[in-house]
């Protein structure tokens, strides 16, 4: 099972001829992903790592049956590339690129939701269903197939925690990096909904950080809708206040965006919150063992 991506995902890499696109295409192929097409306007007819390159997404889909896209194009061109993929109903569309203008993201997310396709990112590491499909830039060896779902706002922290799980013998169903921008496509509650329905997933790790109000929102959602055990970790307890913006979401919901506020909301919803990443495997084992 797993969520969003699996052995049936046929990946299109947009921006495949650039350094990043090329490097990660190789790495995704090595991880066993089915990368079937690349797109770079003007480079149609080439091959990268044995993958055929097309000028347009439409052509690539027609020729290869690609059904999901990952974007490595430079920030100023992301909006148009994303629109092109939305038009072709690619799902999910993973936007790795950082520094995408937030007004471009606004338009991408608006169009995607109208066309009912899911966007992950921007500024995210992508996602991986270990030993089935990697659609992202994470180090493959850190992950192992299993029954824990991970959803996170941070890339490196996801690797850290997945690695600790793997070393403790806890494999993962799917690990999703949502991205760190103020506006991102897929969020906790979307991932939680998918994990709840997924047969392979038996427990969920939610990795959060300061800013915004997403974790608080997730806390009440878990309490009402999620029956599987969830363990949370929130980074940034010691972060200085007033240093970063991005609290607009928090203003609206009346929270401060602080780590304390998030930890409190999660604990009040009955969700264990680890103090350190290294405590997560033990908490998971207790929760799963008790079942």
């Amino acid at each position, binding site marked *: 099972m797993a969520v969003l991506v699996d052995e049936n995902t046929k990946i299109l890499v947009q921006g495949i001829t650039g350094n990043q696109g090329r*490097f990660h295409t190789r790495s995704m192929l090595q991880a066993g992903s089915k990368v079937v097409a690349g797109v770079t306007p003007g480079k149609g007819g080439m091959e990268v790592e044995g993958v055929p390159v097309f000028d347009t997404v439409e052509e690539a889909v027609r020729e290869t049956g690609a059904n999901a896209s990952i974007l490595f194009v430079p*920030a*100023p061109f992301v909006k148009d590339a994303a629109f092109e993929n939305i038009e072709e109903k690619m799902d999910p569309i993973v936007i790795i690129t950082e*520094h995408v*203008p*937030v*007004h471009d993201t*606004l*338009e991408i*997310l*608006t169009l995607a939701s109208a066309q009912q396709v899911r966007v992950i990112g921007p500024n995210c*590491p992508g996602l991986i269903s270990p030993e089935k499909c990697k659609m992202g*830039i*994470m*180090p493959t060896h*850190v992950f192992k197939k299993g029954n824990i779902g991970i959803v*996170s*706002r*941070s*890339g*490196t*922290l*996801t*690797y*850290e925690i997945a*690695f600790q799980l793997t070393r403790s013998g806890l494999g993962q169903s799917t690990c999703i990096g949502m991205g*760190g921008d*103020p*506006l*991102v496509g897929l*969020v906790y509650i979307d991932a939680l909904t998918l994990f709840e329905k997924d047969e392979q997933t038996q427990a969920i790790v939610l*990795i959060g*950080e*300061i800013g*915004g*109000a*997403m974790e608080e*929102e997730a806390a009440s959602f878990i309490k009402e809708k999620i029956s599987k055990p969830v363990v949370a*970790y929130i*980074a*940034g*307890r*010691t*972060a*200085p206040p*007033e*240093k*970063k*913006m991005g609290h*607009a*979401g928090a*203003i*609206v*919901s*009346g929270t401060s965006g602080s*780590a304390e506020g998030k930890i409190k909301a999660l604990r009040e919803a009955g969700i264990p919150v680890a*103090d*350190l*990443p*290294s405590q997560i495997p033990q908490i998971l084992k207790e929760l799963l063992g008790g079942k």
Partner: protein
Amino acid sequence: MELFEKYSIPVPERILLEKEEDLDKVFLPFPLVLKAQVAVGGRGKSGGIQLVHNEAELKEKGQQLFRMQIKGIPVKKVLVARAQEIEREFYLSFLLERKHLLLFLTSPSGGVEIEEVAAKTPELIYQEKIETWPGFSPFQGKKAAKFLGLKGELISQFSRLAFNLFSLLREKDLQLAEINPLALTPRGLLALDGKIIFDDNAYFRHPEMPSDESLTELEREAKEVGVAYVEMDGDVAVIGCGAGLVLSSLDLVNYLGARPANFLDLGGGASSEMVRKGLEIVLRNPRVRSIFMNIFAGITRCDEIARGIVEFAPKIPISVRMTGTNEEEGIRILKEAGYQAFSSMEEAAQQAVLLREKRCN
């Protein structure tokens, strides 16, 4: 304020002073309001806003403002504006926000921070999600004007003004466009003060927009080098790759009973040169007594990081955690050069905390 003017949002007559001596160049009629220009909230409470009635007061209060710091940020500019006869004060903003994407906020309780209004009297906040397309229409402003209790001609005036503020947000790539307070004066509505947050990522299409002024000298320099740096008040410097893991590393230092001196994110795939620059930046802070470097290498290479450390040869004790791509090589390079290297993040942090204590004695 210039941007407000460009978008036909009425603002009071005013002059922006960039140095103390400019206080002599103020020729506006008294009374005047002096406002320290700093990019942090709550400056009214910190004494950053002063009312003056004559030349002597202008000099005295003006000098005070130029010599003060607000929440640690020195005041470099002071805005002098004609004091207005204020009947009422409102709040008005547009912002990009995850849940609603585009949000329109207004409140009859202006002149205070909106966070405070949200916490104490949420019923005084009017909010509406705005569709990306077609965007904000003046009729939506009229509904809000009724909520604010505006009547007659002021209803259209408010909705026009809101429409202009929305255009400013969209056309200039702002994450926030805020007028607070929006004052009702005998001359109509006037934006007495405001705040915009420009999206740095859109700089390529708005080279005219100013850069963030709330950064300290060192933070600005770090930004130019391409690393994210935030100064803190402790003595253990923290360096890593990836914001989430660095945040988590700060928490770990704190958990072990020490205080972090900074946040420094080298980003993914850092070169040995980046490592040297990062070390140089954190060590410019004289409080630093030890360094905790936490590297979980995905696209980053441990050997590259290790080379950067050895080349820089920090004079302050350093403890490094390394795992991931080329881990063995990285640890070997460090150990050969006599540095502490670990594969667990907790061991490395513990060591950094110990090294710092040794230096205390």
